[in-house]
């Protein structure tokens, strides 16, 4: 807990104005090379000079079409994928320049919850063992302390009676219970930053609400920073402080959640938001919704200029030539579109 590079800025988990954000990606690019037909090599540009930051005390939602690079960006931030250009900085220091102690601090402080709880838990390990091995990393060693901590963690995520759940194997739990164990394991490290990649999509509606409450509760209580990757815009609306919208490997818009929902600037953000189905049947029916024409272009052949221009209803000639740079607009959000005010 005492090995962060910038002590003063982070002692209480508050970001101090001017201090670098605890976690940031700066202009990162990721290219996957795959073998295509007949052994031809193709390059997939999963991320294209993408920047994002996560601060303490805020919940950032990362949204965008399937294949737009959300998981890749999460992996880069977690040091599970290495960028071909750009860097990830922890409290302002590039990951590859961190000392060993700083690296350990980074690994402890930044935790992850994945989409598929079953795949992220070891099937041959009882829940007790799974949590104990994480706590041991934190220096908790004695049996007594371990039992105590594990009970606290499991109770904290609503798995009561904790002793009974601790004895079980993952397959003896429901999907929602497994996801709660995965969250308990992430929280065992007392993370200050949590990256959750579609943590709800494998779960039932009722369980989704419970798991979401759990994470929000932790976020508020500990003032942690959260990066929540999700395709559920209703969830974003309910919980996000800030929203980052991606399209085909680039951030097209980011800003305060309220602003983005009330006054989306980028045409893609508008298309995305107008696709949100509403339970209020008197309001709107599917037949009246505008549809986004054309399919997502492939990451192997990103369109020239603005990547969105082939599907954009308001594109002008310039959009197919120049790639728009992100610009900060009047209300403090940032948008990459030639036509936004």
């Amino acid at each position: 807990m005492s090995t962060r590079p910038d002590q003063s800025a982070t002692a209480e988990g508050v970001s101090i104005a001017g201090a670098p954000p605890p976690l940031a990606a700066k202009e990162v690019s990721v290219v996957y090379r795959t073998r295509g037909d007949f052994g031809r090599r193709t390059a997939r540009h999963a991320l294209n000079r993408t920047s994002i930051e996560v601060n303490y005390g805020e919940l950032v939602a990362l949204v965008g079409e399937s294949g737009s690079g959300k998981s890749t960006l999460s992996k880069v931030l977690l040091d599970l994928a290495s960028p071909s250009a750009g860097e990830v900085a922890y409290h302002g220091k590039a990951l590859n320049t961190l000392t060993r102690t700083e690296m350990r601090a980074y690994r402890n402080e930044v935790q992850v919850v994945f989409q598929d709880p079953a795949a992220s838990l070891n099937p041959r390990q009882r829940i007790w063992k799974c949590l104990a091995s994480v706590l041991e990393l934190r220096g908790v060693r004695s049996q007594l302390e371990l039992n105590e901590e594990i009970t606290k963690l499991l109770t904290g995520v609503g798995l009561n009676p904790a002793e009974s759940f601790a004895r079980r194997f993952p397959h003896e739990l429901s999907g929602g219970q497994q996801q709660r164990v995965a969250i308990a394991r992430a929280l065992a490290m007392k993370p200050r930053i949590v990256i959750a990649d579609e943590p709800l999509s494998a779960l039932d509606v009722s369980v989704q609400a419970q798991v979401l409450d759990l994470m929000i509760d932790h976020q508020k209580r500990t003032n942690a920073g959260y990066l929540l990757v999700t395709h559920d815009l209703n969830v974003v609306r309910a919980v996000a402080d800030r929203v980052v919208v991606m399209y085909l490997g680039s951030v097209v818009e980011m800003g305060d959640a309220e602003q983005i929902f009330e006054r989306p600037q980028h045409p893609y953000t508008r298309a995305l938001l107008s696709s949100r189905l509403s339970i209020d049947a008197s309001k709107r029916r599917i037949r009246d919704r505008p549809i986004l024409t054309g399919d997502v272009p492939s990451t192997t052949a990103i369109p020239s200029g603005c990547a969105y221009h082939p599907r954009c209803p308001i594109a002008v000639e310039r959009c197919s030539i120049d790639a728009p740079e992100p610009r900060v607009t009047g209300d403090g959000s940032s948008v990459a579109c030639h036509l936004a005010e």
Partner: protein
Amino acid sequence: MRSASIAECGHEESNAVKETQLLDIHDLVVHFLREEQVVKAVDGVDLRVKPGESVGLVGESGSGKTVLSRSIARLMANAVIDKMSGQVVFQNTDLLSLSERELERRRRKSFLSMVFQDPLGYLNPTKRVGRQVAEALPPELSRRSRRHRVAELFTQVGLPGDKASLRLYPHEFSGGMRQRVLIAMALASRPRLLIADEPTTALDVTVQVQVLNTLERLHREQDMALLVITHDLALVAELCDRVYVMYAGQIVESGDVETVLSSPHHPYTQGLIASMPGQRRRMNKVDGLVGSVPNLALLPSGCRFRSRCPHAFDRCEEMPPLMPTSTGSTSRCWLSEPEAEGEDPS
């Protein structure tokens, strides 16, 4: 007797009720045998779809929606069935009483198509997509008209209908495009009823709107009835006329979509609605559902929602029937009886 009153609820039909229904499921029971226990996946379900109507079936995971929809077409491969009874009357024929051969013949001709929950498993990875759609066409068509019809189907579902696209393999399509190939296959026979099990769960929101738009258009333009199975109430709100809410093998509430969603009677429906993220105010925990669907092999006596219900009382030890409510919907809850509603403890 109870079911008749439900069918007539709100309709003034002089001809026999049977004639006006395209699909009429009556007292359907599907019980499986698993590890020597009886799993009551579908337990006495009544459900009706009129010609050209769009009907939603919602409920949590494990409530029996898929088993119900698959048993309509008797697609229960490998299942160890303990009991299957009731009637599934489609266009005046009880499908459950047909021989395998007769059933197969009808499936091919046929007026009933399905889109499955795990679609990607139903596409053959080694066959070109155009060919797969062509194989779903009625066999009597000529070669030329087949080709024409395949291109037409592709355009209908918003896929490029050019020759090159028809010659692609499934893996060369995105998930959303593959889902639409399956819908094209299901539409190939110009069905009178399309049963779609979670047709868009795997899709992006923008693609979802595109696919739902297509379904809605065909529903309207070709008078194709829809039975849409989903856990997403918003989807039902936008696409369907009527809705059935399923819980632990039973229908617990049904009625007009607007009525059910704006004034739900059953506490389960109320909980489902309250659990939707859009319905929850920021950080304000409202009473969403707690717990999960009970084990269908170890169901409690009485109301199956009892253990999760915030309003449960003594009488719930007795199973409530589906009864008409004050708003014209039906609900399987003692508190939904019009005379009981004054005493609702909430």
